[in-house]
């Protein structure tokens, strides 16, 4: 329900890509997410990546489930087709679409709730099929759209706005996808476009399944008075139990740091996340090492970012099953129907 229709004034000064399009041409309808939501930063990175890739809109299919994150497919590439399906089931719809049109580029956007809870089974199995797609998780550790319950990726001990502490250890999409055999595994932070844009492009180009887990702070439901260090001191006039529907204005969190470095990012609730960017000489082709590297970083309380694992030799779903190179959805009836003579012949076995 976008009430403010977004003016599509294209400044002459905007740079154009090989298709003659500006970044603006890759945008979608106006966002209805909270001001400062990490998801919007990711949308901007996606827009940037497509523009840089000179991607024609009709080449792209945008797929999603349900959640704040899943809404974002509406906020880029208006000129592309898209399916906003049901909660947790984006992978299967994408699998079917890809079965029909292997010639398109699939970008699936999901949330940590959408993928790690209700959708975990489909997530694991789309990986197993090595479906040719970029699968992005806009990971905020909460269910944003249903107002702040923990998701399965929430850290142990983190607290909701209402003050309950999470008692369950997290499921890490990166470790889970490594264990399920994903052929491309990466992580980034919503506020670090410099790292994010190239990873999106790499994921889109990867032939097979590419997981891109993006840490994407929820400015609304991580903003609780109980967190270690919080904005509480600025909130003299605010009583969480009474102003339960109040969402203080926030700004996008931005982070910049170099390869091999760590960076301590303060979130809206005052808590911190320590990001570690993989080194230039990190070898992302060793699945075992990737797992260990993640475990070690976790022990140090760091969240590793970058391209963590890649295997370009696994065939995608179609290569494995020998599907025709011409997309099935574009076949003519004549190519598919064996005709009356064959029917007669086939029926001999039933006499």
């Amino acid at each position, binding site marked *: 329900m976008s009430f403010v229709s977004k003016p599509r004034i294209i400044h002459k000064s905007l740079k154009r890509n090989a298709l003659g399009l500006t970044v603006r041409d890759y945008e979608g309808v106006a966002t209805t997410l909270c001001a400062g939501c990490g998801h919007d930063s990711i949308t901007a990175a996606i827009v940037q990546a497509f523009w840089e890739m000179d991607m024609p809109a009709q080449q792209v299919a945008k797929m999603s489930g349900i959640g704040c994150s899943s809404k974002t497919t*509406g906020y880029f590439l208006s000129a592309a*087709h*898209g399916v906003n399906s049901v909660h947790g089931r984006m992978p299967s*719809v994408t699998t079917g679409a890809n079965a029909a049109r292997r010639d398109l580029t699939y970008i699936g956007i999901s949330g940590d709730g959408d993928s790690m809870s209700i959708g975990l089974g489909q997530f694991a199995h789309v990986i197993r099929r090595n479906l040719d797609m970029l699968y992005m998780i806009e990971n905020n550790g909460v269910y944003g759209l249903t107002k702040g319950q923990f998701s399965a990726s929430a850290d142990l001990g983190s607290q909701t706005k209402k003050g309950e502490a999470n008692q369950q250890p997290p499921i890490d999409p990166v470790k889970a996808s490594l264990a399920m055999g994903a052929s491309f595994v990466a992580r980034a932070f919503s506020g670090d476009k410099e790292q994010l844009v190239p990873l999106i492009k790499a994921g889109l180009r990867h032939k097979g399944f590419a997981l891109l887990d993006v840490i994407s702070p929820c400015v609304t439901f991580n903003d609780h008075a109980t967190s270690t260090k919080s904005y509480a001191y600025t909130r003299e006039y605010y009583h969480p139990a009474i102003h339960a529907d109040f969402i203080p204005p926030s700004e996008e969190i931005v982070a910049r740091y170099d390869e091999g470095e760590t960076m301590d990012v303060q979130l809206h609730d005052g808590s911190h996340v320590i990001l570690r960017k993989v080194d230039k000489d990190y070898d992302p082709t060793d699945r075992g090492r990737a797992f260990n590297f993640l475990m070690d970083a976790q022990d140090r309380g760091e969240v590793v970012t970058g391209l963590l694992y890649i295997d370009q030799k696994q065939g995608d779903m179609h290569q494995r099953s020998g599907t025709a190179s011409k997309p099935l959805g574009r076949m003519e009836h004549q190519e598919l129907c064996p005709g009356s003579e064959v029917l007669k012949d086939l029926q001999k076995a039933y006499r």
Partner: protein
Amino acid sequence: MSQVNNFVIKLANVNGTGSASANGLVMKAIFRMGVPVVGKNIFPSNIQGLPTWFEIRVSREGYLARSGEVDVMVAMNGQTFDRDLKEVSPGGVLLYDSTWPRERSIKRHDVTVLGIPLARMCNETFENPRARILMKNMSYVGALAALLNLDMAVLRELIEEQFASKKKLVGANIQAIELGYNYALENFKCPLASHIEPMDKTAGHIMIDGNTAAALGCVYAGATVGAWYPITPSTSMMDAFRSFSEKTRVDKETGEKNFCIIQAEDELAAIGMVIGANWAGARSFTPTSGPGVSLMSEFLGFAYYAEIPMVLFNIQRAGPSTGMPTRTQQSDLLLCAYASHGDTRHVLLIPDDPRECFDMAVQAFDLSDRLQTPVMVLSDLDIGMNDWMVPELEWDDNYRPDRGKVLTDADLAKVEKFYRYVDSDGDGITYRTYPGGDPKGAYFVRGSSHNKFGAYTESSAEYKEVLDRLLVKWETAKTVVPGPVIRSSDQPGRTAIVTMGSCAAACREASHKLAAKGIHLDYMRVRAFPFGEEVEQFLEEHDHIIVVEQNRDAQLRTLLMTETRVHKDKLHSVLHYDGQPLDYRIVVAGVEEFLSKGEMA
């Protein structure tokens, strides 16, 4: 009534012993001799070691339903010997393996019991222990050949065809048949009163099961993407689709496949894939059974509301819950009609035999594309997994799929702007586009509230406008789904049978039997939901309507009550839901009971 070409053979076996092929051979031989025949497989929900029965009805009149009689029992299963003996009709014959003595707790003086030492003979003749099991089956086929007057040349021909790729097996099989044949000839009076004499009533017919025929229909309709999660009794449909596709859709040179079959991780994923593929422009389907449909409910509502075509085959089994996976029932009608939360309703097609499975598979894709909504084909285990004798399948090479209102790039070039859900024709059906085409045709599919332009809305009026248009589409559906099959009786009157699907055969036979007693009933078999005007009229023209169906809760009667104008007091039920295929005598009894009550009233 003479029993020549008019009797039932029942074979009691243990599953996993390879008896299916032997039993099929008997049936096929009768069919090849020109005598109408039908087979019902009654098997357990396990893999090995439990009782299984195969019932072959031979009917010179061409009746395809069960009759409830057992004229010849082949009792190969010690576990069930007693009940098998009990089931034989008076005057019938029971054949058993006399290698080991059978303890009998019951006596039947009205049954001729014939013992043949099948195991002993086979053990003496064949070395290999596995072969002995298989050949024992063949030897009872031989005994039946003698007793029923089966044509040995036909049997030989069948064996030769079957083992064409493994010729060295032919000899042993024939040897085993002869063992039984000779023993029977020598020891019993052959043939029995119940026996076969050649006829010419099977020409132009085939023996096929509904799942195979439906799969073939999918191939011919041009379906390319099949996604499913295995579940009895639907599994054989995808097996057949795979095998026909491998035969007819693989490029000889490149080996490229013009199809893509995906074994999904569960039913929720299977239907998601089907929706995705249909959205992207490929004809796609999923076969499943009751529990699968329950799991697919959420997605069915999505496809209904987002208006995405998709085809689902529900090969119904006995519910509720896991129920009896290897028994038949028609108890998913209400679920399928209204599956999903909110105001949803779905188009159903209900075939009555394998031939209609083939035809309706094709129709399902056309209707689904045309109406842009899920279409479910409601078959059942009886149709889907049993071999039925049906007229050969036919194909019109002029057939072109009806893909419905799809705008191509060329079409788009002609319009100024494309809106997904604007009804420009007044039939409730709006134009769609496929991804990968002109960006002008791009739109965003959502299961959340949208206005006719396809944009997200929370405006009550805009939301309602779309919901109301779906009702207009529903009215259109009534005019395009297949109409009922109506048969007036010789003396058309105000009393009628209304039924659906696999009840048809039993109802047909019951009608004949009743007519012979002077009870003439008109007949209507509904073939689709929603019900169209023809259904309404038939109901209007009759005062007493006996609804015959295979479920406990009178689900067809319920649907007729609410979805037609019929006065509900006119509707009476004959219900059968014990999991066995319907027996015509149940229909006769039900009708007679109703009529006798009517007379009392």
